[in-house]
């Protein structure tokens, strides 16, 4: 039996037994139900009609707003319980004036020359209003086309693009901002996943010590096989549960259109998934190393605080990276295994990362994961037979049991 085979047997047992527990089933179902409910219920209840305040700069905006009113009315047609949103136009004479009003929240968006729309920031929940305006602008363009007897090709052209260019107050390139948003969304998901499933790894590795089966197992398994197999099993199951939750949430959002999702760029998402897995792995192993010191789940909890602190710090560091992806701090954090998963996807999305940097960061993180597994396994076997008490780190390392 090879070393990997032994580890895989541990992983399979872990997944099978965990997936079989009531706790896992209940938490999986509950999460999916809650997420679905949180997304679907508000959209069933219907939104109260509101009056949108639209800024207008230059000519050609009124037609769009008028069309938007019709679009809004068409949306609620046949739904007597609902009232259509209204629109109010505020005219500005200069871009600065308009920007100030936008910043102050006096208007929600500013239409410019019937060509583009200025929004405060781009991001998730970046108002459905922009969608309505795009629709309205598209309708206006079509009317113009019909009036001028243009070719069908132009119709397709109008229909296949958003007619209004979206810019933000900061003057960011809207596409880059959108990529940043995706990366940031990914980060938040990873942060949630690390904190929720890190604990599973932490208490999970104490299971064999707590029920004392460890002596039977280690008579035939090496410590790294047991520890690695457990972390892998707990991690895979956690990832599966998390992925299911995210997919359900995503589908529900798409179906209900409760929140405008940015378009997903395949390369950005690919990098995000890669770093999600790397980040999830390194923190799982880190939590497992802390758990390896303890012999009971209760003790493990007290060992978890430093690990949680690392995750929280890395998460907050990524805020700074978002606004300043080229700073020295951002560059350094790219090569620290615990911060890299939070920093690299953001820098990548914002185009601030070279391929060489990216590859190096992956290598550093993968090496750190391998090293950590070894360290954790050594701590685990060192403190192995001191059942019933917490092991001092130094003792465990030396293996004085």
């Amino acid at each position, binding site marked *: 039996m090879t070393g990997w085979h032994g580890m895989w047997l541990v992983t399979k047992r872990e997944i099978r037994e965990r997936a079989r527990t009531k706790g896992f089933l209940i938490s999986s179902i509950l999460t999916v139900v809650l997420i679905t409910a949180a997304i679907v219920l508000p959209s069933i209840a219907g939104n109260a009609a509101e009056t949108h305040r639209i800024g207008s700069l230059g000519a050609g905006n009124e037609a769009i707003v008028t069309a938007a009113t019709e679009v809004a009315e068409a949306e609620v047609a046949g739904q007597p319980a609902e009232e259509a949103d209204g629109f109010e136009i505020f005219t500005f004479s200069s871009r600065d004036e308009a920007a100030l009003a936008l910043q102050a929240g006096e208007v929600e968006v500013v239409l410019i020359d019937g060509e583009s729309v200025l929004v405060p920031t781009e991001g998730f929940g970046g108002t459905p209003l922009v969608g309505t305006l795009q629709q309205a602008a598209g309708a206006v363009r079509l009317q113009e086309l019909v009036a001028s007897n243009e070719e069908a090709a132009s119709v397709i052209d109008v229909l296949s693009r958003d007619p209004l260019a979206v810019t933000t107050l900061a003057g960011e390139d809207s596409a880059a901002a959108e990529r940043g948003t995706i990366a940031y969304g990914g980060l938040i998901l990873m942060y949630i996943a690390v904190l929720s499933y890190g604990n599973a790894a932490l208490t999970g590795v104490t299971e064999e010590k707590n*029920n004392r089966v460890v002596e039977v*197992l280690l008579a*035939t398994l090496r410590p790294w096989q047991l520890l690695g197999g457990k972390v892998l099993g707990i991690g895979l199951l956690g990832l599966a549960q998390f992925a299911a939750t995210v997919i359900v949430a995503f589908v529900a959002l798409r179906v209900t259109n409760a929140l405008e999702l940015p378009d997903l760029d395949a390369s950005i998402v690919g990098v995000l998934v890669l770093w999600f897995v790397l980040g999830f792995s390194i923190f799982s192993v880190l939590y497992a190393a802390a758990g390896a010191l303890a012999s009971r789940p209760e003790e493990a909890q007290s060992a978890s605080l430093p690990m949680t602190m690392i995750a929280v710090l890395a998460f907050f560091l990524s805020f700074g990276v978002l606004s300043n992806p080229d700073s020295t701090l951002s560059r350094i954090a790219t090569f620290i295994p615990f911060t890299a998963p939070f920093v690299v996807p953001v820098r990548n999305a914002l185009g601030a990362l070279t391929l060489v940097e990216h590859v190096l960061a992956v290598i550093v993180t993968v090496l750190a994961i391998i090293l950590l597994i070894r360290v954790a396994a050594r701590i685990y076997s060192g403190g*192995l037979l001191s059942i019933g008490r917490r092991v001092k780190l130094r003792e465990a390392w030396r293996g004085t049991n």
Partner: protein
Amino acid sequence: MLSIEGLHKTYGDVVALDDCTFRAEPGRMLGFLGPNGAGKTTAMRAVFGLVEPDAGTITWRDAPIGFEQRQRFGYMPETRGLYPKMRIHDQLVYLGRLHGMSARAAGDEAEALLATFGLSERTRDPLEKLSHGNQQRVQLAAALINRPELLVLDEPFSGLDPIGVETMGQVLRERARDGAAVVFSSHQLDLVEDLCEDVAIIRQGYIVRQGEVDQIKDASPVRHLELELADGDVRQLGELSDRVVEQVGNRYRLMVPADLDIRPLMSGALATGQVRRFIYTTPSLSEIFLEAVA
């Protein structure tokens, strides 16, 4: 053959093993005896690499013990433990597979073992639903699942009722008959005397007696003599007064040197008339034990 040579192990100031040396042969059972804290568990753990000895060697069939060898060993540790919420059949299969068995072979063996222990009806129950005694049977089954060549059991009989002791003893004897080397520690010395061909007695980390039970008993410098005469007084038979260990009515228990010639005693006793009792034996294992670890 399991050969343990000159094992040393200290924990800080505590000496757990001090030149510990003994052997266990295939097809035989070895009772590993010693007072609490004498080093039995440490020595057994060392066989499985769970304790790293400071010095000494452990070999199986003249080869150092590694991962490969341990796949063919079975172990029942002192600290019992299995997964409480896992079905007992699945649990045995899992352990079998960790020992390199195929899923099918492990499944067949698990069923056979659970049948032996009368647990066929409970294969799908989680361990925690079983009584203490049944859990212990599963623990033994876990040690047997891979049909081990070497079985090491730390106190396998503690906490079992007499029926459990009987079953477990039988199973271990069968495994020894099939060629396995069986080593187990126990404080139930009469049980060891019944089951084992060999014993090793450890005291403060050092093996003070080792060999065949009968030989060790024969080698003892004393013998037991139990005498009861219907008509005479035992003390008339010779210089026996200071050898009396116990007297109940007319019944005497005596401890005599092994080289004492008992023929004059026998004829003397017969000369007094009816002899109700005349028993001459080697000391029991527990006496040997108490003397060895004193």
